[in-house]
């Protein structure tokens, strides 16, 4: 009875045996490979940077180092020219081989970049990977500019950019600080698809921007972004609903916003006070942050005056 033994035919041809021959030789071979050695990247030749993170790309452009960019990720949408560069894909699903194929000698990334195994592989191939953590504070942005300037040998340009940003910041913040009117309550809504609507709570990047324009985040009950619930929206009683441009068009413009559960029962809904800004501009925390503060302030003032 063949209940006991598997047929001989199957034994001989199990795929693993086939694999084994192939892999045993490859495995033995790999031991001989100089692992730590590496990538034949010539450190003296022109710098080639892969930038992973929209804000980092923006800073690199602002420092006048755009010609050193070998590749960017999908969030690098500004300036327009950055979208013409080779794209290494979404920051979370990077490909080690794809990035190495661009022959970079430096990969600069936000802490979003991943998967971690890929970053390790790139590093092991002899291409340094520098992670520049993001920060919702203006001071954090300045620090990032300075660090990036050092990394790509443009400390002078970085210092100039920091000075310029500080001056712009002063100009942007002055009217806001001088204003005496009560802070409007703003509800920030993030929407990637019509069925997926999130609200920015405490400590979210949206709240940081609202704080800088002297507005108040209408939602205080939770941290970060959470799904929108009608009761929470009504309880928040926002004076203004704020969107990203992309999110506003997804939910179907101002009329679409009013159809979102709960919004019609708030002061913002009753007076059709809906504002929006481009996502990377408003929440990118890059060199355009002072301009973003002014633009957000103007947008809020405009809807509040209606």
């Amino acid at each position, binding site marked *: 009875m063949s209940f006991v033994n598997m047929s001989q035919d199957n034994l001989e041809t199990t795929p693993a045996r086939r694999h084994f021959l192939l892999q045993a030789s490859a495995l033995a071979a790999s031991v001989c*490979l100089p692992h730590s050695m590496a990538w034949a990247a010539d450190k003296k030749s022109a710098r080639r940077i892969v930038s992973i993170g929209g804000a980092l790309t923006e800073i690199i452009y602002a420092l006048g180092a755009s010609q050193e960019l070998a590749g960017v990720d999908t969030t690098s949408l500004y300036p327009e020219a950055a979208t013409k560069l080779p794209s290494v894909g979404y920051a979370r*699903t990077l490909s080690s081989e794809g990035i190495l194929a661009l022959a970079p000698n430096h990969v600069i990334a936000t802490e979003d970049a991943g998967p971690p195994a890929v970053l390790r592989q790139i590093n092991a191939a002899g291409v340094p990977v520098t992670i520049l953590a993001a920060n919702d504070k203006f001071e954090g942005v300045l620090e990032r500019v300075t660090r990036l300037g050092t990394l790509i040998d443009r400390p002078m340009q970085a210092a100039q950019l920091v000075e310029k940003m500080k001056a712009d910041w002063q100009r942007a913040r002055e009217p806001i600080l001088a204003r005496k009117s009560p802070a409007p309550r703003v509800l920030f809504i993030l929407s990637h698809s019509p069925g997926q609507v999130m609200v920015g709570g405490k400590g979210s990047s949206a709240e940081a921007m609202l704080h800088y324009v002297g507005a108040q985040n209408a939602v205080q009950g939770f941290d970060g972004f959470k799904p929108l619930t009608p009761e929470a929206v009504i309880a928040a009683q926002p004076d203004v609903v704020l969107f990203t441009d992309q999110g506003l068009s997804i939910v179907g413009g101002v009329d679409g916003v009013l159809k979102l559960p709960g919004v019609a029962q708030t002061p913002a809904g009753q007076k059709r006070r809906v504002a929006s800004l481009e996502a990377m501009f408003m929440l990118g925390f890059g060199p355009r942050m002072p301009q973003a503060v002014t633009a957000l302030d103007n947008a809020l003032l405009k809807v509040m005056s209606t």
Partner: protein
Amino acid sequence: MSATAGAISLTSRFTTGLLNRPVWFLSLVLLLCFWVAAWAGAVPVTTDDWLVLWRHDEPLTSGAYVLWNLRLPRILFAALVGAVLGLSGALTQGLFRNPLADPGLLGVTSGAACAAALTIVVLAGSGIDIPVAWRFWILPLAAFAGAVGVCLLLDTVARWLTADSIAGLLLTGIALNALAAAIIGLCTYLATDEQLRSLTFWTLGSLAGGSWPLVGTLLVLLLAAIWYVRRLVSAMNALALGEAAAAHVGINVRHLRRRVIILVALLCGFSVAWCGVIGFIGLVAPHIVRLVIGPDQRRLVPLAMLVGAIILLVADTTARIVAIPAEIPVGIFTALLGAPFFLALLTSVRKGG
């Protein structure tokens, strides 16, 4: 097509000819896939890069580095993970005598995902300072522990609640999966924006982590499993007739069930821990084989491994090369390439009677 349909074939070993010996045919296809996958990629590879092993003194070219340190371990890893998923799928469907069963039903996937979610959200949120050197290992280790833990828990709970009934195992599995899904949902709700994205991309699955040590470990695991399964497959054929019938021909169903669960937990747990969730293969690879050669487990198991290896290798290679220099999550392609193929096979088999 159901796993219970058809009797145990005792004559299959005597068949001849290429199509009657699909193992040879599929092995050839797999080798061809290896060949294509090794040459395809973002960095061009030359014949010299293959020969670099025999001349280690000179500095490596980029092609040689990528080929030997990134691409080869990755494609071998992809094929091994595919084989593991095919094997686990065949064993699970055989155990449950249910064509809709896949290794996920035993809680492997949800257990790993649950542990991963808890690690990403709770551990990171608790503020415990984990040494940098451990950070890379902690997620796969937790996921592996979660996969194996939930599998064994499922077996124990099911045995306790429903005696030795396999239908009971199935139902308990569904309940436990729902429970795990609830915990994942809770973690998703508690997660910060960044943790949420980590979690989402972990569940999408990726073979980017493939390295020689992983290939070696998985190969040893798979070889040991094949050695072990060799003695189980005939018993599983008997199980296809029903638990009572299997017991009558002298099969200890309880032992068989325990062994299959441990095997699937270890194999699938390992691959899920390193690659995240790669669905579809465990479910469909055994079906593809069964459509062509019938339900005999002795032939089904090796062929399901080969088919799984081929599907995952082709899917991963496609994921690597369609958007150079970017990469697309592999889970998209396993279903995108596998599902139409499966449907085509289904219609042709039905038409041909």
